[in-house]
């Protein structure tokens, strides 16, 4: 009944062309080790979905694994743009399916709710709806005006790095949940990487903290340090030196292999 597998076994579940929602946010509680495993496995043509991304999306772009990125923000905050992502988009190798973070959430909500589209407030004055072909629908109850509706995005996988999980895939997130609980619901299947594996009975003592129920989870990987070089709340902070090193490597495609090797 255990769903625990190795990182490489979990990565092998993903097929070329799959759509992946990646948990965490920017450099925080991201499925970094899993992204590296996908890069090592040579996955291609992935569609990535995330509100605000940094290392994981950038690394997969550097590895040539990506066809499309659906995101509201890709960058390293005050450390600047994502070099590999930017290069891939500007060269045409990767399509930036520009979203607002809000519309990524709306698209995932539609999938989680089992409906074809999700109305979202705002977007007035933005060029995004026209650029993305998002439609407006009049309120059939005549109380509001028109509202933009976002088509659902149903990822094949949600890949989430959590602090604690059991072998059945029940996952506990401490601190910021970001969009992980929604991703776990919107996606067809879930892959968890976890800092710690514990017996289910430990989770049952505070079940309110388990945001990912095990029945939707296909694989659990024991991956201490799985968010490195990012942070993991309650476990470790961003590795600033490693991040600087990566940002240099991301500018030079030839250095990717060394980065993947060093990160083992």
């Amino acid at each position, binding site marked *: 009944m255990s769903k625990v597998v190795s990182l490489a076994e979990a990565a092998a579940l993903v097929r070329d062309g799959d759509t992946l929602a990646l948990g965490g946010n*920017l450099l925080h509680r991201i499925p970094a080790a899993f992204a590296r495993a996908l890069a090592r496995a040579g996955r291609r043509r992935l569609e990535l979905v995330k509100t605000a991304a940094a290392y994981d999306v950038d690394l997969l772009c550097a590895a040539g694994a990506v066809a499309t990125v659906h995101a509201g923000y890709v960058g390293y905050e005050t450390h600047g743009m994502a070099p590999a992502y930017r290069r891939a988009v500007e060269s045409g190798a990767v399509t930036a399916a520009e979203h607002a973070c*809000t519309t990524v959430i709306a698209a995932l909500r539609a999938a989680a709710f089992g409906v074809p589209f999700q109305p979202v407030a705002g977007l007035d004055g933005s060029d*995004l709806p026209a650029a993305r072909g998002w439609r407006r629908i009049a309120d059939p109850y005549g109380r509001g005006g028109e509202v933009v509706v976002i088509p659902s995005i149903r990822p094949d996988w949600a890949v989430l790095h959590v602090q604690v999980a059991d072998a059945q895939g029940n996952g506990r997130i401490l*601190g*910021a949940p970001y969009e992980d609980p929604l991703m776990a619901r919107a996606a067809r299947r879930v892959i968890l990487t976890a800092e710690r594996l514990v017996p289910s009975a430990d989770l049952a003592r505070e079940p309110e903290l388990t945001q990912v129920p095990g029945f939707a989870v296909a694989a659990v990987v024991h991956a201490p340090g799985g968010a490195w070089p990012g942070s993991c709340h309650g476990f470790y902070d961003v590795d600033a030196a490693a991040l600087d090193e990566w940002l240099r490597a991301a500018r030079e495609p030839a250095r990717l292999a060394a980065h993947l090797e060093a990160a083992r």
Partner: protein
Amino acid sequence: MSAGRDVPTQMIVAMARRLRDGETVFYGVASPLPLLATRLAQRRHAPRLTPLNIPGGVGATPPAPRSGSTVGPDMLAGSPAVFPLMDIFDLSARGGLDVVFLSGVQIDPTGAINMSAIGDLERPRTKLPGGAGSACLMPTARRVLLWRSRHDPRSFVERLDFRTAAGNVEAVVTPLAVLARVEGRLAVESVHEGMTLDEVRAATGFPIDPVGGRGAGVPVTPPPTADERAVLDDLDPARVRDLEFR
């Protein structure tokens, strides 16, 4: 950086003063300046301010983040609740968010921003990081406060390459001045100490007048007081507020 021209401190102070006690205020990614503005306001005139951030801090008291990230675990410090990004967007969407701090790589005369691309969106000359939540927040939050760490004609442009977001902009705080939106168009509300209206105009890529009209005078932004400086130095001894200006 002399005390008389401490641009980050001047900008934070100008941002903090616009916050009113009891308001909800959200800052997103890459926002050390707004974070410090909310902390300063909490410590001075707005003890009941409720800053919200991406990890879910509600009235939290995070430290100035040395990493420069305003999305990390430290943002929950002291928070009695977790009210994460999705909830904040919904709060704004239903009319419950008082203030949002946002930035733009390009800002046009109406306060609309471009965070998406220079050149064509589909095949950009320069891909920008994206507008995060701004396209939905700017039209729905009650008051939008923009800041930009550069004030030059490439940042303040007549026409955006792409209009990522537009909406309820109240003011733009820059290294040179505070611009206010009056009847839908940015105007100079005040210039920071040592700056002149002509310098602001030269740094702005579109014609801009004082709030009082073309011939009107422009006041000087009240410089940081000794107490404001002291509180900020206490909140940010390592000067994380300089990160954006390097």
